[in-house]
């Protein structure tokens, strides 16, 4: 039942794009501007290019066992118990991130749209549709992503179109003042949220993608599209708001929408534009949640993951309310622990797999046939 779902390469591409954009459009411009000032958009470009290497690593791993998810692959390569242990960490990470994203959406709505609504009810509402999506299965998520990406890009297009008169090039000049060292240093958080965390996509790539050869290509293209969207957002934030405001705002891209004013007629549309962030957040959270639910089911060798969805959704909603006491804690945690957690799961673990695979290559090649 888990393996039956098949999504097309195009649908996979869209999921990758939405995943890449995900939280990034909300928080990345601010984080980058804090360190690299008005060169934040250069950092985004550099980060995206480096991120491609990470994506390449994922594609490499995915090739070996195209019929296995990441969890099963871990067990296959690292052996049953070590594999399960590592997988547990992986599942733990994606589950933490799922609830962390719930927190993001709650905070975002609390700061900009519904300040007096308790975050619990916002998170629960969001969790309900996430649970609903995962319940309906990967195919349904992928199909609805196809529709929402249209909505997303229409909104995005209008946002860019409407905000472009406000662009002040003085705000990004002088170009490349930050210097190579700062640029490279500030890419790490960017790579973390856009590409390293994309390891959770290995839970359905390439297992559930109908054309495996094409899928790797989609992975790259989807990532690049998502990366470009973030670069545009970063550039616009810096050039419209200025480096200081971009760094100071919690959600600079929303502030961007507030600045839209075309002839005093098209203005005050930021609440409408909030749809953009909700869509991006929704799909990223759903993918994290799907990965963790499916992961738990596979670690425990369950036949079906569906019974776990509702209880796990409940736990995720509760966790989202307690994991970060406030936004400052969250920003601090992301910079210190989160980045290491992501890198150890998203970069070191794959590298470990590569190393072990290289050693056990012959032994493993026989294994799939016998099992």
């Amino acid at each position, binding site marked *: 039942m888990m393996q039956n779902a098949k999504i097309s390469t195009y649908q996979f591409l869209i999921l990758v794009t939405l995943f890449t954009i995900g939280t990034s459009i909300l928080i990345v411009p601010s984080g980058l501007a804090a360190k690299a000032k008005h060169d934040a958009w250069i950092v985004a470009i550099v980060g995206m290019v480096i991120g491609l290497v990470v994506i390449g690593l994922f594609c490499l791993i995915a090739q070996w066992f195209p019929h296995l998810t990441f969890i099963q692959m871990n067990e296959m390569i690292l052996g049953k118990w070590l594999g399960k242990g590592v997988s547990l960490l992986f599942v733990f990470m994606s589950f933490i991130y799922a609830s962390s994203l719930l927190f993001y959406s709650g905070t975002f709505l609390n*700061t*900009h*749209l*519904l*300040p*007096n*609504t*308790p975050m619990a*009810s916002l998170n*629960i*509402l969001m969790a*309900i549709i996430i*649970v*609903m999506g995962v*319940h*309906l299965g990967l195919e349904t998520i992928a199909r609805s992503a196809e529709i929402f990406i249209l909505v997303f890009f229409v909104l995005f297009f209008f946002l860019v179109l409407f905000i472009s008169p406000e662009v002040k090039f*003085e705000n990004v*000049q*002088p170009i490349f*003042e930050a210097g190579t060292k700062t640029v490279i240093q500030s890419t790490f958080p960017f790579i973390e949220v856009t590409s390293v965390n994309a390891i959770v996509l290995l839970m359905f790539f390439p297992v559930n993608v109908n054309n495996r050869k094409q899928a790797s290509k989609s992975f790259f293209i989807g990532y690049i599209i998502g990366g470009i969207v973030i670069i545009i957002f970063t550039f616009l934030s810096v050039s419209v*708001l*200025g480096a*200081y*405001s971009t760094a100071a705002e919690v959600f600079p891209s929303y502030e961007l929408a*507030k*600045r839209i*004013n075309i002839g005093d007629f098209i*203005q*005050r549309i930021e609440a409408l534009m909030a749809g953009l962030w909700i869509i991006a957040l929704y799909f990223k959270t759903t993918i994290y949640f799907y990965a963790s639910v499916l992961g738990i089911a596979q670690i425990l060798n369950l036949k079906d993951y569906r019974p776990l969805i*509702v209880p796990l959704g409940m736990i995720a909603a509760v966790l989202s309310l307690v994991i970060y006491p406030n936004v400052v804690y969250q920003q601090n945690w992301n910079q210190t622990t989160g980045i290491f957690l992501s890198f150890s799961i998203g970069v070191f673990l794959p590298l470990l797999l590569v190393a072990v695979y290289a050693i056990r290559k012959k032994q493993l090649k026989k294994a799939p046939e016998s099992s």
Partner: protein
Amino acid sequence: MNKCLFAILILSLFLTGCWDRRELNELAIMLAMGVEKVEEEYQVFAQVVVPSEVSMKGSTGSTKVTLYSAKGETVYEAFRKMTKDSPRKIYPGHLKILVMGEELAKEGIGESLDLLSRDWEIRPDFYVVVTKDTSPSEILNTTTNLESIPANKMFNSLQMSEKAWSGTKSITLDELIADLISDGKQAVITGVQLIGNSKIGSSKKNVEMVSPAASIQYDHLSVFKGDKLVGWLTEEETIAYSYVTDSVKTSVRRISCPEGGDATIAIEKSHSDVKGYIRKGNPEVDITIKVEGNIGSVECKMDLNDLGTIAELEKIYEKEKIAIINKTIDTLQKKYKTDIFGFGEAIHRANPKEWNKIKDHWEEEFSNVTVNVNVDLKILSTGTVNNSFLEEIKD
């Protein structure tokens, strides 16, 4: 099964209520806000619309707006305290204009602006003005003609005068904050004055007169150093400032004719380019202003059909303009010592390395910056007539 669960959960969420719901008739829509410092306390004024008076149907003939005020240790506290007076919660989402008191501006506006940039409902696109020789309460108390809501009047006339005259400068909150935080540019804010009798101005009588007893006028530009007001620019200097910072949309300028008398040039387009350099370790700034305009009126005798006349007029204009701009820059360099033109930013853009060296003592450096002003006017047309009929008037 999902649907059932979904329904139950949604229902339970509904039952707990709608936290952020505010009906339109529970709002006190604040269009103008005033902040003043009174004896170590902030006094906040809110000019609130009375919707039923604005609409055609339910109007009873009383004033269209009402003013609430409160005092508090911080702006936010005062703002909330206003509910003691106002029956509805003050809704700041449509704030159009913020009037800062002169006293407050002299002491520093930074702290009072923080709330306005932090509050989620306030959009940072309202104009900020500073009172000159009056207080925010007097300004906000004045009733106005034509635009019956004073805040709208203030907003529109600032916008229009900037567009048509360039003798004022509209500064929105986000621009102001950007200027305040920039280390290469200082802030300016347009001043607002009350002309006439403020007592009658606050009553309905004021709008019943053809020429109101009191009216709100924009004049002068306040110059800031850091977040403190240090002085005022005259109207002429304000226009010069607008030219340098490239914020002139259209304007009008009197020039003297070669053989006495006056002519007016209507400026249709202006573009200025400020370039910074470090020459021999000294900062230097080139200002190139390209202006296009028409001859608006001719009040002297000259032959407009002559190509030379046009060129001559252009030259006169350029000379006079350069002189004014130089004078203005001089005032700021010598008198106020504050870089409102953003020369520092220009140098930063041109030479970030050198800038880092001088930025900490930019205040002193600014006074010694060599500024080269270059104005280039192109007269495109002479209006609907060529020569003035004044030529033909028989004595």
